[in-house]
């Protein structure tokens, strides 16, 4: 276990280095440069600015400096915002995105397990048909449409009742978080429901469930102890990739619900071509996702003793 964890961590670090390198050379392949903006610069000012941002160095020197800075957790200074460090931006906006993402994952996980188990128990009966129809809808409707419809129905509900039960946008209180996190988790929930259903169907017909039944174990106990616990395992394996889906899905939800998260900031930075912010957030997100996947794999090994982590 310990050796496996170390091996995976080393792999993860190499992957992050690959991501950082790909990002660096991709951004340097962009035609034009960050200083050829709206203002015409004189030779002197241009040279000064290039020296300030280290753009006058040879490419490989820049790359070495960049890697050194990243290794120390320094992502540089924003090009479009005066004196704002990328680290500050991440520190300020990432907690918002993380809160939203965690709520969405919890919502998707709980919902997926519950609905999936229900559909398997009521296989080919009305609840199964209805839920699976909704699941197919959830998989087929793009996240931004779900977000827009969620907001639209909020507006209508608020208008109909005459009071603002839940705010339509913004961030701050718990009330602001409910609808965006549900909307964000919906697609993943649909996917997890499908997965849970098939894994539950396999478990229902397994020998140990039959044995438990013949021993006279009460049905609720069979459900919680034998079926649910075993059926959940495959759901946990896809939680890692699901985190990636929810992270990028957050971009859209943050834009639509006007949430000051890092995703919205990233999209803005891309639209304004703020090079250091794009590079910094890409590497940060990349590292985050890589280590989340590793974490989920390690947790999976802890939960399921049958998986030998080698």
């Amino acid at each position, binding site marked *: 276990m310990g050796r496996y964890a170390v091996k995976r961590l080393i792999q993860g670090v190499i992957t992050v280095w690959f991501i950082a390198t790909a990002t660096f050379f991709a*951004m340097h392949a962009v035609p034009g440069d960050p200083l050829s903006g709206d203002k015409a610069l004189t030779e002197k000012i241009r040279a000064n600015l290039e020296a300030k941002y280290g753009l006058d160095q040879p490419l490989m020197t820049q790359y070495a400096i960049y890697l050194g800075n990243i290794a120390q957790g320094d992502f540089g200074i924003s090009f479009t915002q005066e004196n704002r460090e990328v680290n500050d931006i991440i520190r300020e906006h990432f907690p918002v995105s993380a809160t939203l993402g965690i709520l969405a994952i919890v919502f998707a996980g709980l919902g997926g397990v519950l609905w999936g188990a229900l559909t398997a128990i009521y296989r080919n009966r009305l609840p199964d048909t209805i839920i699976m129809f909704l699941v197919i809808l959830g*998989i087929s409707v*793009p996240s931004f*449409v779900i977000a827009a419809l969620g907001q639209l129905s909020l507006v209508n509900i608020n208008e109909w009742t005459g009071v603002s039960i839940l705010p339509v946008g913004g961030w701050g209180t718990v009330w602001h978080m409910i609808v965006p996190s549900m909307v964000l988790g919906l697609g993943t929930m649909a996917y997890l429901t499908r997965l849970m259903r098939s894994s539950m169907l396999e478990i229902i017909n397994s020998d140990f469930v039959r044995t438990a039944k013949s021993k006279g174990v009460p049905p609720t106990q069979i459900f919680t102890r034998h079926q649910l616990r075993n059926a959940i395992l495959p759901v946990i394996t896809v939680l890692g990739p699901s985190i990636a889906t929810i992270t990028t899905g957050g971009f859209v939800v943050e834009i639509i619900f006007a949430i000051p998260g890092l995703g919205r900031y990233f999209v803005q930075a891309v639209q304004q071509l703020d090079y250091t912010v794009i590079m910094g957030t890409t590497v940060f997100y990349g590292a985050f996702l890589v280590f989340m996947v590793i974490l989920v794999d390690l947790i999976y090994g802890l939960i399921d003793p049958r998986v030998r982590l080698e």
Partner: protein
Amino acid sequence: MAELKLDANAFAPIHQEQEIQSISRPSLSYWQDAWIRLKANRRALISLYLIIGLLIFTFLGPVVWQVDPAQQDVDQISQPPFADRTVTLVTEYEPWYGEGAVAGEGLRFVEDPTTQYIRLVWDELPGAAGGYRVYRNLFPIGPERAYGLPLIETEPGKRFFEDRLDLQPTTYYYSIVALDAAGYETESVETISGDVTRVITPSEARGRGLLAEGENAAVGTQFRLATHPLGTDYLGRDMLARLMHGARVSLFIGFFAPLLFVLIGVIYGSIAGFVGGVGDQVLMRFADFVVALPFLLFMILFKVVFAIGPGESGIMPMLLAMVILLWPATARLVRGQILQIREEGYISASRLLGAKTNYLVLRHMIPNTMGVILVTITFAVPSAIFTEAFLSFIGMGVAPPTPSWGSMCNEGIKTMLTTPHELIFPALFISVTVLAFNLLGDGLRDALDARMRGRE
């Protein structure tokens, strides 16, 4: 030992057994079998018809409905489907300076509101020491007192206003708010609502081709404007034409990106699977790194890198980025399949018969992975369409004015409260297409992949 006596008859073949082993039904090829299975799956079959219908809509649609998707119909902006298309002829515009008495009390219209102008007059409000502010809204004024768009501030003595700002045939709610001496809004407010009639002047009618040059018509004559079966968007462009042309972009990316990256994945994967050993290790390690790249982040990054020049739609950069990022999944899959097939008996048999490597790969390995590959492509189509829509939605996709379903959603979402059809139609097309491909993919997987059969 007892003597066994056998005559020649004992060695005659038993005829019955031959009959048992004979083939009673016509033998089916893999693809015939798959087609029969697919036909039995009603959901998959309906999806297949839906996709064929969508292709007809995309490629034959523009031939039947020859409307330029970039053509702006300024008389019909943000019109829902089946909207009233009549327009009434009025006299040319003449300036108005509040002259003429108007019967009635309080805030009132001088004439019935038209899209040419809306003229308001009002009586003095209490506490209007600093004049009045005039607002226009698309919604009734609720208790939160959102008055909408501020139009003008007038002098205390000037109690009339003419609105000519971008008038649309809808219902407007006008409010006048009295301002105190310091210019702050007071509590005294008056509100009025009116339905606006769409009108046109003779000179405009000539410009639109409704009236011939030199021809005249009586005031009050009604014309019918151009038909837009699915309404128009916020610039007055025909939704149906835009959906058809947008389908080209969405389906182009939806089909070609998967085809290309699956092709690359198949070549890469079969090389890795066939070479084996160290070469395989190196090739697959590299694929692992590409898989680890966060997909949408790098899609955005690559879109920036392959920066779009002026006048380019941005479809090619998107296609390229997708192919660069998505091939490894297929490569892994194909490699696994090849490794498996390599050990099969019929490969050894074929080799024994003197088959060359090329023959083995082309004749046995790739055809035997075709089922898996086809299923991969079918599932890759909806995710490519989703990706296009996502990128266009956040403004990193197809550049305007080229329509795509994603960018249409992006535009429609801004006006979803007043004109929801601008969001609903493209969203519906994306959803139905993705749904159809997902269901068809399920059906194909059941039909083609014997090992996955019966799983859900």
